[in-house]
């Protein structure tokens, strides 16, 4: 539409949303077919994912170009900031559901299951547990000797170092933000690059931890309710770290291309907020999944 300088920017009609819908639909339909051994499923998934990625590049690219060409006034920036805050709130609630499930299982349903002797006589409950028909837990970080056992990952080994890595990355991210506000580009690039690197190091270590769990500890997604909560919580967190790291990587590329000014850098802020959010979730995971 017509756009008067200085007024709230209202975009022209856009095809990106429908492209996104088609991508998402194809991806999910392919997933369903894949789950039911439909031969076309994986192909549909690849196609849908490709279309979705294409949409993300196209849509965010459009937004970045509009932003860099100065179409957005302060009010548009405020809108983006408010929306990012509420988006992160929705993510908090998503993780809240899984944390709530963990709390309910540990504090209520497993003790109840142990209290009733009707269904599974002799089941004593406790935590960790894979349930009355699941594998038997042995101490943390102990390689198992038979398939009827599983072992958990102790908090003070790799998870502790991962905690330090993520917390450090939050600090480096903030340093980069301050550098951006002071218009010190070199400092910004270095600290942002360190942040991204720490994110990917975290993911590599997390991958190594998963390998260790599956190969040596007998701890898998199917290890009863302990395995379910452990892998779903850490897995979704890992997925979010992946997204956050990619976002920061894109921001780094934009910085290298000379985007952003000390006053105008919403995308950087959104990425940084998201990064602090995934770090905070990790602290919750470290306490409730690993330590307690």
């Amino acid at each position, binding site marked *: *539409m*017509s756009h008067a300088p200085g*007024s*709230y920017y*209202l*975009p022209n*009609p*856009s*095809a*990106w*949303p*429908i492209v*996104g*819908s088609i991508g*998402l*639909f194809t991806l*999910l339909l392919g*997933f*369903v077919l894949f*789950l*039911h051994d439909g031969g076309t499923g994986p192909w549909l998934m690849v196609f849908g994912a490709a279309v979705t990625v294409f949409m993300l590049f196209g*849509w965010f690219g459009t937004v970045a170009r509009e932003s860099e060409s100065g179409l957005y006034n302060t009010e548009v920036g405020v*809108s983006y900031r*408010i*929306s990012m805050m*509420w*988006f992160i*709130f*929705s*993510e908090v*609630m*998503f993780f*809240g*559901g899984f944390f*709530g*499930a963990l709390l*309910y*299982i540990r504090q*209520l*349903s*497993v003790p*109840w*299951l142990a209290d009733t002797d009707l*269904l599974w006589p002799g089941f004593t409950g406790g935590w960790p*547990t*894979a*349930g*009355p*028909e*699941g594998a038997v837990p042995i101490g943390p970080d102990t390689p198992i000797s038979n398939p009827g056992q599983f072992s958990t990952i102790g908090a003070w080994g790799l998870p502790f170092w991962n905690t330090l890595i993520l917390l450090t990355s939050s600090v480096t991210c903030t340093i980069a933000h301050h550098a951006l506000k002071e218009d010190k580009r070199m400092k910004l690039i270095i600290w942002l690059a360190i942040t991204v690197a720490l994110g990917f190091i975290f993911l590599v270590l997390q991958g190594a931890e998963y390998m260790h769990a599956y190969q040596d500890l007998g701890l*898998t*997604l*199917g290890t*009863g*309710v*302990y*395995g*379910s909560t452990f*892998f*779903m919580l850490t897995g979704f967190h890992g997925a979010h770290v992946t997204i956050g790291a990619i976002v920061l990587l894109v921001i780094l590329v934009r910085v290298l291309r000379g985007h952003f000014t000390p006053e105008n850098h919403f995308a950087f802020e959104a990425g940084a907020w998201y990064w602090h959010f995934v770090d905070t979730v990790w602290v919750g995971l470290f306490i409730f999944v690993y330590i307690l």
Partner: protein
Amino acid sequence: MATVADDHHDHHDHHPTGLIRWITTTNHKDIGTLYLLFSFAMFLVGGAMAMVIRAELFQPGLQIVDPHFFNQMTTVHALVMVFGAVMPGMVGFANWMIPIMIGAPDMALPRLNNWSFWILPFAATLLLSSFLTAGGGPAAGWTLYAPLTIQGGMGVDLTIFAVHMLGISSVLGAINVIVTIFNMRAPGMDFMKMPLFVWTWLITAFLLIAVMPVFAGAVTMLLTDRHFGTAFFNPAGGGDPVLFQHIFWFFGHPEVYIMILPAFGIISAIIPTFSRKPLFGYTSMVLAVAGIAFLSFIVWAHHMFTVGMPLIGEVYFMYATMLIAVPTGVKVFNWVATMWRGSLTFETPMLFAIGVVVLFTIGGLSGLMLGITPADFQYHDTYFVVAHFHYVLFSGSVMAMMGGVYYWLPKWTGHMYDEKLGKLHFWLTTIFFNITFFPQHFLGLAGMPRRIPDYALQFTEFNVISSLGAFGLGVSQLLMAYIVYKCVKGGEKATDEVWDNPEGLEWTLPSPAPYHTFETPPVIK
């Protein structure tokens, strides 16, 4: 002034036309219209399924469909009505009215707004395509309780992903509403000057963002339990099927307020106009909505009284539920007080609004009965529950939307709708609605279980009455389609004010409202 503004934009805009216009549009009025049309289409689809249900229940025994298909009908009827008809309908009103009501040029994030809508037809396709798979659609009830949904076929997976897409749509739409209200108000449009409809949507949007992700998490756990060996809802692995019920209703209870709060907003717009008095107790209305929203988070287990909770849980959830009657009572009182000694006229929107106040109150009172734990042990999973939630959902949310359509249709189309037909639509809807659902109270109290395609002989008479009412109710809705179509095509020219000196910025605009409005913010007194 309006024509000037129109010409101005015709020169500058290069808008695609035809289908591409509707697919790519970033205009809040276009998107609002799309939402409303989609909602009505889904209303007919869900309604057709209700007809199947009532046809089967017309007589005892199994006549028309087999029990498995009957279960699919009850399940998908509810999913389609909740996620396809009521929620998108309310978003349609939000899109059309919120920017106008607060003096904004559009929604804050117009492209995202388009996506929020255009996810919906794809999600509906996923959901409805489940009927084509082996095993058919989901048949475990709209609550998708484990362990039944752990067992279903491909249709359950399609439903799970449809829910994911619907969740994305709702969260993005809700973010848009919140940002628009926070950031796009015209200068001088303070929070406590906003029309109540805007307030109800602000709080609804907050509820959506808070609970849709939890629901997404719940169905994700279903998915991994079904296919990836997790044991969230499987006691053999240490899980608990009741956990699903807790997570579902943590979403589900705020969800019912998501569907009713905007309806309250519409009613609060209509009643003052036709009473020719300002809304009574505006501040208390705002506080009541906020109170209802807060309480919605802490009462969920009243849907699960018979599941085997500790006594302390039963008692807590009963008393917390009773509390909801207070803010809801405040609202009903305020609507009645608004009408008190007003100079009332009874145009179609007002008829619907009064119908809602009366019938919703009946639904609210039967809700209180259900909230009493010991009594609920008798009512649980009977037709009393079905009667209750149709009184709040149909004669609450849906009839409020119908009233809203008649109220704002002249502003949207520039024509008056056919008042005689509108009133006929109201009376047919109200009478048939009561014929359909009032007998279900008696059926429920006498012990007829819901979600069962057959029943004992002593329930026959009331079921026959209910089914006849339902067929009448279904057919009557086609009249609404005709009235709206006729109004879009032509009719008496509507004035800018449409009604007798109504309050609100929308009535300062020409009818029909121009494609772009309030590009220069209005002055708020």
